[in-house]
């Protein structure tokens, strides 16, 4: 070998030796809420095995039969960040989402601890800003448009940015991957329940498949619980004059203060998010609200909360009722967005549903909800 080529050979060998290819990422087991020693390695393996078989890995996703997810889209979202010779991207989830939402969609990516609110943990299968109400057939799963809306607009008042600049196909891939992480996550939570809480030693694959089918079915049927925007808009009062708007706002405020809706109890007497539920309680302690992800960290006493919260990755984070004067609405500030928040509530939070859910009447009729929408929007202080 010539001298130059020998030098090159040695240099490249040295470089390659230092260039250790890292292990492909694995999904993190969902053992939050448990003490580390509460779950044995055998139990972890019992849970992880069927999940890996059915759902694959972050690099190589799989779709169980009958789940109705598009594998091609999942493959586009999954895996390392790369693109083909024509520039078609892959690894889109890793490129755009992992920093906050984490490789497992558990909302504990590296940036998460700095953020308020925390990024969504998809594994609970709960989505806050939906146009669908919670029914047993759908369990309030969002429709495709709800996720598309969030991705395209982002969430004002949070660190969730807009991904409008991505192609339609990339956005479609991300929506599909979020659904995948959610179905996988809810399945895993059930398996943890069977193995760790109920003490089952073996998980039959049919049991796992039943659970997968169960959770996937909600997504498939999500549109059944849709609060159709066109239908809702038909009930909006005519607002052609300033007087009509003022009258609607007045009606809305009356409903806001009414005993059946009780909006003021959290959102305050003037919509500033300072209701008694969110302020100081009679004994001077801050009266705090939590979303479901953080409620799991809460105990009956501060000592208990400390112990419980230590079993989770991120510290407990309280939830504030929206201050309408900021005119910043996480689910969007269009009238229909606010209509949906009132009608179906915000899943995973104390914000209840006030509108009709299928055949079950709500406390507010559609016309009344529009009046409240107008009141809420009227509170904006630019």
């Amino acid at each position, binding site marked *: 070998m010539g001298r130059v080529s020998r030098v090159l050979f040695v240099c490249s060998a040295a470089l390659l030796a230092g260039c250790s290819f890292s292990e492909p990422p694995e999904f993190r087991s969902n053992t939050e809420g448990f003490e580390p020693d509460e779950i044995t390695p055998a139990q972890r393996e019992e849970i992880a095995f069927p999940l890996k078989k059915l759902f694959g890995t972050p690099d190589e996703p799989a779709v169980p*039969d*009958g789940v109705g997810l598009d594998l091609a889209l999942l493959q586009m979202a999954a895996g390392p960040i790369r693109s083909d010779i024509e520039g078609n991207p892959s690894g889109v989830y890793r490129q755009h989402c992992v920093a906050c939402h984490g490789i497992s969609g558990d909302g504990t990516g590296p940036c998460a601890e700095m953020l308020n609110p925390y990024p969504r943990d998809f594994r609970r299968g*709960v989505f806050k800003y939906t146009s669908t109400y*919670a*029914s*047993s057939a759908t*369990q*309030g799963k969002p429709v495709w448009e709800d996720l598309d809306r969030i991705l395209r607009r982002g969430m004002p008042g949070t660190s969730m940015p807009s991904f409008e600049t991505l192609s339609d196909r990339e956005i479609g891939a991300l929506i599909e991957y979020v659904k995948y992480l959610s179905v996988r996550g*809810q399945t895993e*939570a*059930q398996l943890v*329940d*069977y193995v760790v*809480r*109920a*003490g089952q030693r073996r998980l*039959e*694959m*049919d*049991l796992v*498949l*039943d*659970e997968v*089918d*169960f*959770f996937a079915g909600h997504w*498939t049927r999500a549109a059944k619980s849709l609060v159709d925007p066109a239908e809702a808009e038909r009930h909006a009062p005519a607002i052609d004059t300033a007087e009509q708007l003022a009258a609607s706002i007045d009606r809305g405020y009356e409903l806001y203060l009414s*005993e*059946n*809706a*009780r909006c003021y*109890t*959290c959102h305050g007497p003037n919509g500033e998010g300072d209701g*008694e*539920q969110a302020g100081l*309680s*009679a*004994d001077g*302690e801050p*009266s705090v*609200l939590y979303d*479901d992800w953080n409620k799991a960290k809460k105990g*009956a006493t501060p000592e208990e909360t400390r*112990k419980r919260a230590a079993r989770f990755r991120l510290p407990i984070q309280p939830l504030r009722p929206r201050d309408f004067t900021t005119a910043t609405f996480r689910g969007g500030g269009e009238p229909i967005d606010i209509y949906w928040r009132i009608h179906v*509530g915000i*899943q*995973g939070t*104390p*914000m*209840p*549903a*006030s509108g009709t859910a299928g055949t*079950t009447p709500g*406390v507010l009729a559609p016309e009344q909800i529009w009046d409240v929408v107008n009141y809420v929007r009227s509170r904006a202080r630019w």
Partner: protein
Amino acid sequence: MKRRLSRRRFVARTAVAAGAVAAGLHLPAMVSAAAEGWGDLTGRFLYDGTPPERRKLTVDKDIECCGKFDIRDESLMVGPDGGLANVFVYVRSRGVEICPELEASVEKDVLLDNRDCIFIPHCMTIWYEKQQYYVVNSDPVAQNVAFTPLGDVPVNKIIPVGGEFRHQFGRKQTLPVKVACNYHPWESAYVLPLDHPYAAVSAADGTFTIPKLPAGDLEFQVWHEKIGYLDTPQWTGGRFEMTIQPGTNDLGTVKIDPAWLVES
């Protein structure tokens, strides 16, 4: 959407067929409780010590209405004679045969009342396929009922004054579900949806009865909100086994050491 016949159901159907063949061949058949009878399980939980005074809860919402009640923590209710209330006892064995009399006589509604600014009863069980959770507001203020059973539809409903609603649970739960009120944060209750009626919550005097269990070996689970599974030296993980005979089966008085109800 057509479901493919799952392997589990295929196996189950084959087993029934095999059982029929076995019976015809006079081979040992699977235990049939209908042939052997039904038995009741009774017992009593005794708190073996002096319970701490029940903490007064912070009632700072709707004070005009709720402030007049002496609302105290319900997480450890011990009767004057030491009976430990609100202990859940339920059959853990899967696929238990259910007494046809129970099926016929089961109450369709299981009531959760919002009354005097608390939930009544504090603890209950529900046979989710046959019974509905019937939630009523008997208070002069609007109430809210919110709970999130694992893998089941979440509920967060406003109940106006004089209002009510019925809820059907969609699946059984491993642990009792905590029920809260978003308007009145001190309120709490527990409901355990199961796929059979063989469950009880101990009364104020600590006693409980589970009627018409299928005779045979059964495994029971015991749970209390203070500690979760009631792990004792005799009951690992809060579980005990019992051979139920037709007639009465008495677990007797079970003495609960106060230390067992404290998380270490």
